[in-house]
């Protein structure tokens, strides 16, 4: 089994990372704040203005360790790329599959099904834990409609129809999501619809940030496996857009990001004070909030669950890798189908 290595997230502005022997040192104002053995690290994710010594950069490139730069709100800025690796035959297969309209549609349908099934799972769990009948009814009703939408997916005969079904279902899902929040905290996180670029309320800011973290993991999973993260099946190709990483993200949005966001809110681990409201209405996580979210996400990735296909305990952080590999296997016709990760 691939070993789940840690990701080192550095959020301290003006931090300087350097290589010392086989370790990474995080220096802040010439003081050593942290020293981590390189072999524990699979990736470095750096927010804002974090610097890296040329020696460390070279070493990461050589080892194929990913280095990603994100801005303060988690938007992708840059990444380190070593020699082009992976498999040209696999990429050829990926490109052929994307050109084959039927094949691409089939994959896109499976991806949307994964997304909607996992979204529905969040609502059903919410319903099981609901404190009031009103909330339970709201969630059960939404879960029923989602089930109907999922059954409709095979009828979508074009990508546009499929994206339409997905959009309708997502709207319904988000409408009923506040019911998953506990009553006392619900009014602290008023949330009506998904808003992004920029998020216009705290809940949107929270899930946007989590999506960015999961997306970075999906992207590096695809690159590790040798797939081209820019050529997607559900998401259209656009310059600079990691369409396949966005495809892979779909099945993980609900279980890895939404679920965690709701847990953080319900447990009071994240509070309105963890967000900054900007003039004009944009809402963003502040430094303290980002730290809380990153720590929680890291811990969540270490938890294990039983993979429905492999029937073995898998760290949650490895799920994107397993799915990326399954997708590669499907594209190389090594397995008969691509099945998204389905949360229990």
């Amino acid at each position: 089994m691939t070993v789940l290595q840690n990701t080192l997230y550095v959020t301290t502005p003006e931090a300087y990372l350097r290589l010392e022997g086989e370790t990474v040192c995080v220096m802040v104002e010439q003081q050593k704040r942290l020293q981590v053995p390189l072999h524990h690290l699979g990736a470095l994710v750096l927010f804002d203005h974090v610097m890296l010594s040329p020696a460390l950069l070279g070493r990461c490139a050589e080892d194929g360790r990913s280095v990603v730069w994100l801005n303060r709100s988690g938007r992708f800025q840059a990444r380190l790329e070593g020699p082009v690796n992976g498999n040209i035959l696999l990429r050829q297969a990926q490109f052929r599959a994307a050109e084959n309209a039927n094949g691409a549609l089939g994959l896109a349908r499976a991806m949307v099904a994964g997304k909607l099934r996992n979204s529905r799972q969040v609502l059903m769990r919410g319903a099981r834990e609901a404190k009031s009948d009103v909330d339970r009814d709201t969630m059960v009703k939404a879960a029923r409609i989602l089930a109907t939408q999922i059954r409709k997916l095979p009828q979508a005969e074009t990508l546009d129809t499929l994206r339409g079904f997905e959009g309708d279902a997502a709207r319904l899902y988000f409408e009923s999501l506040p019911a998953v929040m506990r009553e006392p905290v619900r009014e602290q996180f008023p949330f009506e619809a998904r808003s992004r670029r920029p998020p216009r309320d705290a809940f949107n800011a929270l899930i946007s940030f989590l999506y960015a973290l999961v997306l970075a993991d999906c992207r590096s999973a695809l690159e590790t496996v040798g797939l081209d993260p820019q050529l997607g099946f559900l998401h259209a190709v656009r310059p600079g857009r990691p369409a396949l990483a966005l495809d892979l993200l779909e099945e993980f949005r609900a279980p890895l990001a939404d679920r965690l966001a709701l847990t953080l809110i319900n447990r009071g681990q994240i509070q309105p004070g963890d967000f900054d409201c900007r003039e004009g209405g944009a809402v963003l996580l502040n430094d303290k909030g980002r730290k809380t979210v990153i720590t929680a996400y890291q811990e969540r990735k270490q938890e294990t669950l039983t993979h429905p296909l492999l029937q073995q305990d898998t760290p949650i952080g490895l799920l994107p890798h397993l799915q990326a590999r399954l997708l590669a296997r499907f594209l190389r016709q090594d397995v008969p189908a691509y099945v998204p990760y389905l949360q229990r």
Partner: protein
Amino acid sequence: MQRPTDDRLQIPLSALNQYAYCPRRCFLIHGEGEFRHNVHTVSGTLEHERVDRQAGESKAGVRVEYALPVWSDALGLSGRCDAVEFHPDGAIYPVEYKHGKRKQWDNDDLQLTAQALCLEEMTGKPVTRGAIFHQQSKRRREVAFDDNLRRAVKSTTVEVRALLSSARCPPPLSGIDARRCGECSLRGICQPALIGSDRKLEHLSQTLFEPEEELP
């Protein structure tokens, strides 16, 4: 200027070894460019580096070439020998360093014989014996390059070339051979359990659009 006329796929010597161990492993490494280090391969690499550093040393009249590039145009093979001893009596004696205690599969012998065939073609001299040096036990195990081994190298080379040209990954080992999966460094990539669960995959795929009614 002579142009290369042979555009056959060159087979790395180590691919013969991998193939004899498991065709799927061979394909993943040489056909798909996958390689994952585990404890075994990492310490193996470190030992090889130690071996490589001692290049050109001589001992007791025996000249030893370390990390010697070898090839066979006849077979379309190429690779490196960990060590080749050139004895005063003219004998050429390849030595392959292996991390493990002792051989468990025939693959090491096959790889060593392939090196011998390369050395014969390069030097025009017979190469009849060589050895596997086991790092853990610090013992040499001598291998005589008999007709069976020589034939096996030739037929395996043909099979490996066919496999790598096919661009299709073979299935994982099954039956008693599957016990080799336990100590394979590529296990996480190969995912033998996943491939073996085609029926499960098909079931999940068929029921993907039929969510279970497990409402509270």
